[in-house]
Every structure is written in structure tokens, then in C-alpha cells.
């Protein structure tokens, strides 16, 4: 156990060299042990890793010095001795600084020319950095039911848990089918309000008068047919989260009332002067361009400012194409399980088709396509004939062309149209209708949506301007 002169390696080079001089510069931790597993020599890298010096621990069993988890349960030295082969293991050790370090260790039996075992050589590689990188690579690319691996989604996954823990209002924007509802629900589930109600209200689903009663509630006799008191959704969401989807479709009059609620957090049901203090976190979502609607006077700027405390934009699927294989496999596995099918993969041709499809309906459309294919397919691999026919029709239409962007996120029509100077309003309006119809490829419902009108308004205006087909 006392310090001894450095052993030399003879017969290899012209003259003998000191063994430690060979081992010292190596970045790998190296220890030589005798057949009883007692330390003979350690290099500097292993001294740094364990925190013990070679002079301190010379003659001490290696397991007491290295303190690895494998030393206690699957000693690689004993295994190497038994098998006669080098043994490689991954594990951890606790060094003298009381730090647990992940290591990869290799144990090699050393034999003399006659084959007799004379000791072991063990190497230790610090793999903390590798593990850190590995963890980063394999981190769960998901939040709630939202999954993805693209940089845009990674950014979202990074901030979503932080946003969830706050009570700030959140505005989620993104095209249809990008997962706005999923994010809203996941935000609620990851928040401190998870055990409280999550109330969803579609602001575009009900007429204005019904929506007011739905949101704020009413008292008995407040209007014809109000036969009893009804608590509004805001009150039902007390202590929880109120999710207002399609907030861009909320009528202006209700926008004012919602704004008042966001300011003082008191709900006044229709027909009542008694307010209810509701502790509610508001999450709103829309596929519309709210800033543009503000400019056009269709959405209140002050309401936008109140909702827009935290803005989360969900990218369309075409901007996260690297997520496509992940999503395809995810949905296929889910639907195979749900339908108890043996479908396990897509053919190369199907993968190519699905990779190039523009997905105007985004992730929802991809999920529907995979659901359809998983239903239809009776084999193990999905082939092109199992895909919905419309994919091929759309593919031929969009071949060579950039995918159609959601109209709501395009510049306003009035900006698209040029040369309107000197034209009167009916002429401008007629031109806007024509532009909308061209953009929607003649689909009137889509054109009405672009113009922000109802279908009947578009039909009336088209008739007025003689645009009926």
C-alpha cells in the first residue's frame, strides 16, 4: 500500500518506458488490478473521476474505490474472469465528491504468455454528456395529446408547461385542425385548476341572444321561455378554465360584455342585478386573423389586448412536415389498437403520397385519412387503394402548386385587389365577391367564410350584382 517505483514496459520500444507515462495522457479512466481485484495502478483520468489518488488506494479492492452499481451486483471483473472475454457495462459510480456519475466500463482479463491470469485492466468512460444528449434526443415530444418533433413544436412544448402554470389569459391561433382544442385542454390539465371544471364554449355555434344566456346565464322570467334560473358557462367554470373557441365569431355586443367580465370577473346573468364573482381562467382560440378583424372593425381591439396576454400559434402541418412520419405512425398504432386490426405499417408508395399531400385540414385531416385507411385495410400494410379517393383528386389539382393557405391568414381582400381607386362601394363589393369566389374555386360557402358573411348574405349580394351562376 506504500508508494512504489513506477513499473516499466520492456521489450516493446527500443528501451523500457514507464507504464504510467503511457497511461497518463489518455482521456479514459484506466485501472490495473491484480487477480484479487486490488488496485495496482490508476491513471490521472480515473483519479479525477473517482477523487482518490493512486497512492491512497493502492492495494484496496477496486469495488471499494470505484463504488459502481455494477461492482456490487454484476462485477465485470468476475465475469471477465469466468468468460475470458472483455466485458462492457454501463452504470454509475459515486465519487469522493458524493457525485453520482454515469460511466461505461470495460473489464479485460490480462494473461501472461502461458495463459495464466495475472490481473485485469478496467477502463471508465464518463458518459454524462452522452446521456444528456440522448435524453434530449429521446425526450417526449408531446404535451397532452399534442405530439411533434419539429423545431416549431419543440418551441411550443418548451413554453406550454410554463404557460399552464400561470393564470394568464391565452389566445391560441392556428388553422383549422392544428390542435387548438387539444392545446387548450392540455393547458387546463397541466395547470393547478386541473381538478376544477374545463368548460368549452363555441362562440360561433349559437345565435347572439342564446349565446349571451349560454355564457352569462339568466334568471327566471328574464325573457320569454326563461322558466327557471340557469347558471351561465362562466359561472360553471368557476375555479376552472373557460375555453372560448372560435372567439373571432363572437358578436360585437357580446364582446363588450365579455370584456367587462374579464375586467372585473363578475358575472351578471340576464335579468339579474346580482353579480357572481367567478374565478375563471380564460383560454380563447380562433382560426381567424384577429388583428385584421380589429382593423376592419369586426373585433374589439381592447378585447384582443385582454385575451392576447399569452399568444400561442400552432403551425399548419405543411410547415412541420418532419412531424408527418411521427404522426402517421402514431395514428396508425392508435387506430389499429382501437379497431383491433393487424395493420402495422404503410407501404412506401402510401408514405410518399401522404408526405406530398398538402393537408388543408391539417392534423385532423391526416388523422381522418389514417382512420379511414386503417378501417378499410384488411392486410398488414396500408396500400394506395386503402386511401380515400379524394386525396388523389386533390393531389392532381395541387400538383406543382404550393399548398393553399388558410384564407383567414391571408392579407385582406381589399389589399389583394388593386386599382380600386375611383370605384364606388357597389363596384368594390362586387369585385371582392368575385375575388373571394376565385379564391374559393367557386365554393360559395368558402367564399362566404372569406368575406366574413353568412351564406345567405353572399347569395343575396351575388343576386344583387347579377353574379348568379
Amino acid at each position, binding site marked *: 500500500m506504500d508508494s512504489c517505483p513506477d513499473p516499466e514496459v520492456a521489450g516493446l520500444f527500443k528501451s523500457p518506458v514507464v507504464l504510467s507515462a503511457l497511461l497518463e495522457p489518455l482521456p479514459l479512466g484506466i485501472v490495473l488490478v491484480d487477480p484479487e481485484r486490488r488496485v495496482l495502478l490508476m491513471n490521472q483520468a480515473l483519479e479525477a473521476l473517482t477523487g482518490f489518488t493512486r497512492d491512497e488506494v493502492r492495494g484496496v479492492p477496486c469495488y*471499494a474505490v470505484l463504488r459502481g452499481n455494477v461492482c456490487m451486483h454484476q462485477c465485470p471483473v468476475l465475469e471477465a474472469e469466468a468468460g475470458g472475454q472483455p466485458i462492457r457495462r454501463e452504470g454509475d459510480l459515486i465519487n469522493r465528491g458524493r457525485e453520482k456519475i454515469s460511466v461505461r466500463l470495460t473489464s479485460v482479463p490480462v494473461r501472461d504468455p502461458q495463459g495464466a491470469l495475472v490481473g485485469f485492466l478496467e477502463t471508465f468512460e464518463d458518459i454524462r454528456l452522452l446521456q444528456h444528449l440522448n435524453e434530449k434526443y429521446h425526450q417526449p415530444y408531446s404535451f397532452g395529446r399534442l405530439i411533434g418533433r419539429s423545431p416549431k413544436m419543440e418551441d411550443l412544448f418548451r413554453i406550454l408547461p410554463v404557460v399552464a402554470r400561470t393564470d394568464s389569459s391565452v389566445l391560441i391561433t392556428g388553422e383549422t385542425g392544428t390542435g387548438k382544442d387539444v392545446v387548450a385542454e392540455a393547458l387546463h390539465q397541466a395547470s393547478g385548476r386541473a381538478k376544477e371544471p374545463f368548460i368549452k364554449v363555441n362562440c360561433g355555434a349559437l345565435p347572439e341572444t342564446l349565446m349571451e344566456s349560454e355564457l352569462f346565464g339568466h334568471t327566471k322570467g328574464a325573457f320569454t321561455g326563461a322558466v327557471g334560473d340557469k347558471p351561465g358557462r362562466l359561472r360553471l367554470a368557476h375555479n376552472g378554465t373557460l375555453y372560448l373557441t372560435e372567439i373571432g365569431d363572437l358578436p360585437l355586443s357580446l364582446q363588450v360584455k365579455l370584456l367587462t367580465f374579464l375586467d372585473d370577473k363578475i358575472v351578471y346573468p340576464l335579468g339579474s342585478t346580482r353579480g357572481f364573482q367567478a374565478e375563471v381562467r380564460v383560454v380563447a382560440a380562433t382560426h381567424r386573423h384577429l388583428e385584421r378583424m380589429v382593423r376592419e372593425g369586426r373585433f374589439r381591439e381592447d378585447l384582443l389586448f385582454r385575451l392576447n396576454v399569452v399568444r400561442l400559434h400552432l403551425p399548419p402541418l405543411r410547415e412541420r412536415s418532419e412531424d408527418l412520419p411521427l404522426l402517421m405512425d402514431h395514428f396508425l398504432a392508435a387506430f389499429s389498437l382501437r379497431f383491433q386490426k393487424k395493420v402495422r405499417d404503410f407501404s412506401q408508395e402510401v408514405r410518399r403520397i401522404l408526405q406530398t399531400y398538402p393537408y388543408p385540414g391539417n392534423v385532423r385531416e391526416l388523422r381522418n385519412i389514417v382512420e379511414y385507411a386503417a378501417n378499410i385495410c384488411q392486410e398488414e400494410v396500408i396500400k394506395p387503394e386503402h386511401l380515400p379517393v379524394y386525396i388523389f383528386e386533390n393531389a392532381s389539382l395541387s400538383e406543382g402548386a404550393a399548398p393553399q393557405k388558410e384564407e383567414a391568414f391571408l392579407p385582406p381582400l381589399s389589399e389583394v385587389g388593386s386599382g380600386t381607386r375611383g370605384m364606388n362601394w357597389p363596384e368594390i363589393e362586387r369585385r371582392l365577391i368575385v375575388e373571394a369566389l376565385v379564391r374559393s374555386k367557386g365554393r360559395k360557402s368558402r367564399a362566404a367564410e372569406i368575406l366574413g358573411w353568412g351564406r345567405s348574405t353572399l347569395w343575396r349580394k351575388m343576386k344583387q350584382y347579377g353574379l348568379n351562376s
Partner: protein
Amino acid sequence: MFRKVLITVWNSDISPRFDLTSEVVIVALDDQMSVIQERTVVLPHASAEELCHLILTEEAGLVICGGIEEEYHQYLTWKKVEVLDSVMGPWVRALEQFRAGELAAGSICYDGGSRQADA
């Protein structure tokens, strides 16, 4: 007045790892450092948390162990338990050295003479 010492054991040595210890020896010493009681406790499974719990419920005033992670060392120290860690060698010899007032953190108690590594 007696003092309880808990030693983590692996085979006949001090266990190299606190968190992987499944056997401990608890020794009660009187004022003259004589052993008045000694018993072995086998843990159902190795766990640093459960070992800390055992140390506290046994009201041990001193722990002799091998490698221990900083968080458990700090926890035990905070709970006013003295910890002599990085001790190497047969536990019987470590106890003898402790009774002789010669044991410290980092002591090496193997044959060839006791040494004191810089703790």
C-alpha cells in the same frame, strides 16, 4: 447514556454504496465506547430513502458508510446525524477504529495498515 452507530454492510465490508445497501449493523455504545448491543438489520430492498428513514427511526447518532450522494449526506447532517462516509474496509475493523477514536471520513481500514485519506 449510550450512542447508536449504524454501519452499512456488504459481505463483511463497509458497503461501497449507501443507496445499494441492503444490510446494516446497528451498534449501541456506552460512554466508555463499549458495545452494549449489536444487531443486524436486513432491508427488504436497497433504497437510500428507506435507509435514511431507518436511520432516523432507529435514532442513530452516527452513520459509517462508503459512497453516499450529496443530497442524502446533507439530509442526514441536517437531521443532526453525523456521517463518516468514504470509509473502506471490513466493518468490524472500522468499528474498532471508531471505538479507538481513530476513524474519520475517508479512512481505509484494509490490511496493510490503516490509513487516512484526505476527507
